[in-house]
């Protein structure tokens, strides 16, 4: 039995006003892949990510997660799909009125069938997973440093043990050392939990350290998609310009 692709975008077109963001875009992400989504500023990467999450409806085309169409009407199916994915927003999007502990516990509490002891243990597991101390649970999001915000946001995204993890600029705003730590962290979690990861990034080191596959978004569609080494050799002005002289280093 062949499993359906984790993410399947078919014939996506997005139009904002008169501006065409995506034209007939196709993308397939199989289970277990770590796909880095590349593209210039304003090429519609984040828009594409939001469409995968169902936050934004494409003008035309279909988005299927785990083989289920996101624009299907049934609210229960929709919620079941959402519970199978975790999203790390660029700026964390932590609930500022809740403490770190409550932020991570939030999606677990929303299931309404786990008791407090269970939730408490799970939250501490997640905190340990992203290498934070139990004492950090009492802090409020405003008291955290940028790197810690990302870690807590990652812990919250992982709270329901999703099969698909979406990352928007996971290392933006972190220093090289921290961003390397974060890349290692996501990489080891991916191996331990068997996640499928789709990430949008500008950072070549993040891409080199984490991605197994690369999809390049330019001119409104995916111009290249495949294993990292393959995409590097594509002869397109954007690809050569983006990787430039560093092409060799990334291989």
């Amino acid at each position, binding site marked *: 039995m062949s499993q359906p692709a984790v993410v399947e975008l078919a014939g996506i077109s997005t139009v904002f006003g008169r501006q065409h963001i995506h034209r007939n875009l196709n993308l397939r992400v199989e289970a277990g892949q770590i796909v880095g989504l590349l593209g210039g500023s304003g090429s519609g990467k984040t828009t594409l990510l939001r469409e995968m999450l169902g936050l934004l409806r494409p003008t035309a085309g279909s988005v299927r997660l785990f083989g289920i169409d996101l624009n299907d009407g049934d609210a229960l199916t929709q919620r079941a799909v959402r*519970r199978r994915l975790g999203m790390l927003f660029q700026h964390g999007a932590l609930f500022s*009125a809740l403490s770190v502990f409550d932020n991570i516990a939030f999606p677990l509490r929303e299931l309404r069938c786990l008791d407090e002891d*269970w939730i408490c*243990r799970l939250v*501490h597991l997640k905190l340990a997973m992203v290498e934070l101390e139990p004492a950090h649970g009492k802090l409020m999001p405003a008291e955290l440093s940028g790197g810690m915000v990302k870690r807590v946001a990652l812990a919250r995204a992982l709270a329901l043990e999703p099969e698909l993890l979406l990352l928007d600029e996971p290392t933006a705003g972190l220093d090289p050392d921290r961003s390397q730590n974060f890349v290692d962290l996501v990489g080891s979690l991916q191996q331990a939990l068997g996640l499928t990861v789709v990430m949008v990034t500008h950072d070549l080191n993040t891409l080199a350290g984490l991605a197994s596959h690369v999809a390049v978004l330019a001119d409104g569609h995916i111009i290249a998609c495949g294993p990292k080494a393959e995409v590097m050799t594509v002869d397109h002005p954007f690809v050569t310009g983006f990787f430039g002289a560093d092409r060799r280093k990334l291989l």
Partner: protein
Amino acid sequence: MNDNPRLQVASGRVVLTGQWTLAAMLPDLAILEDQLAGAGRSVGVWDLSGISRLDSAAAVLLWRTWGNAWPATLEISTLHRQVLTRVAELPQQIPGPPVRPFHPLEVVGLLTLKALANLRGMIALFGQLLLDLGYLFRYPGDIPWKEITANLYKSGAQALPVTALVGFLIGITISYLSALQLKNFGADLFIVNILGISIIRELGPVLVAVLVAGRSGSAMTAQIGVMRVTEEIDALSTMGISRTVRIVLPKILGLTAAMPLIVLWTSAVALLGGMVAAMLQLDLSLIYFVENLPRAVPVANLLIGLGKGVVFGFVIALIACHFGLHVKPNTESLSANTTSAVVTAITAVILVDAVFAIFTRHIGVPSL
């Protein structure tokens, strides 16, 4: 995929198969928990080699079933053993969220301290305002005219329709109710005195103050608060621009200047409403009303009303700016401070009104 979590107890062994993940367990979580609890007490041999996935939620469930200890015999793949090990390594005593005992005295004390801190902050802001005014007096080129006029427009001109509507309706109501009483005593003509004094001296300013506190005061707090959350105020400071001169001062000056004008406008519209109601109810002609108004209401009342408007506007803007500047960067604090600003402003306005009433008790009351 027919890979649901399953549990079988056979000849002293518990055999688990399928996907042991939170998502897969959810549909019949209660049944699984019961089965596990039943098996956990009696059996010491667990066979987990047949499960395809094990996530930490399921691992916690199993660990709790085993009473926080490894079972006597456990068959499991290395990968899944790691997941269980991670749960086992959690400290036994997990510090829960701290619960603060409730002491009424402590709460009262905290509230008092908070009120005093707010009072101190407002006095400090007032002092800063005076210093800024002194600075602007010496360097008139730095006066933020644009911001002041923008605030005048926003909190003054744009408030005209709503204050007019409310004023008109209140005028009609008071006039109608008084007319019913006055008719009984044959004292119809005194409607001019009642409406004139009550609206011009008291109701107009207070009514406008309450409306403006809800409308402009909350807007000021929210605006300054969001500017703090998004670090816009810090950005201003780094450009060497004083936040009080550019943000607080224009709001306070703008509202202080706009309030007496809105008071005048609202009182006028409320009187118009009262006149119309008196005309319909008591057959009192508009001309009689207008001619007798100056006689019944000494001009001092108008000045008191306008003076109240100035002070109320200043108080509302000062309180709104104070709470706005003390918003902490989270959504809860923003909403709490906006609420505090409006509630404090309305309370302060009524307090100040009482002070006004005491100090002006001999002024402007016509003696018959």
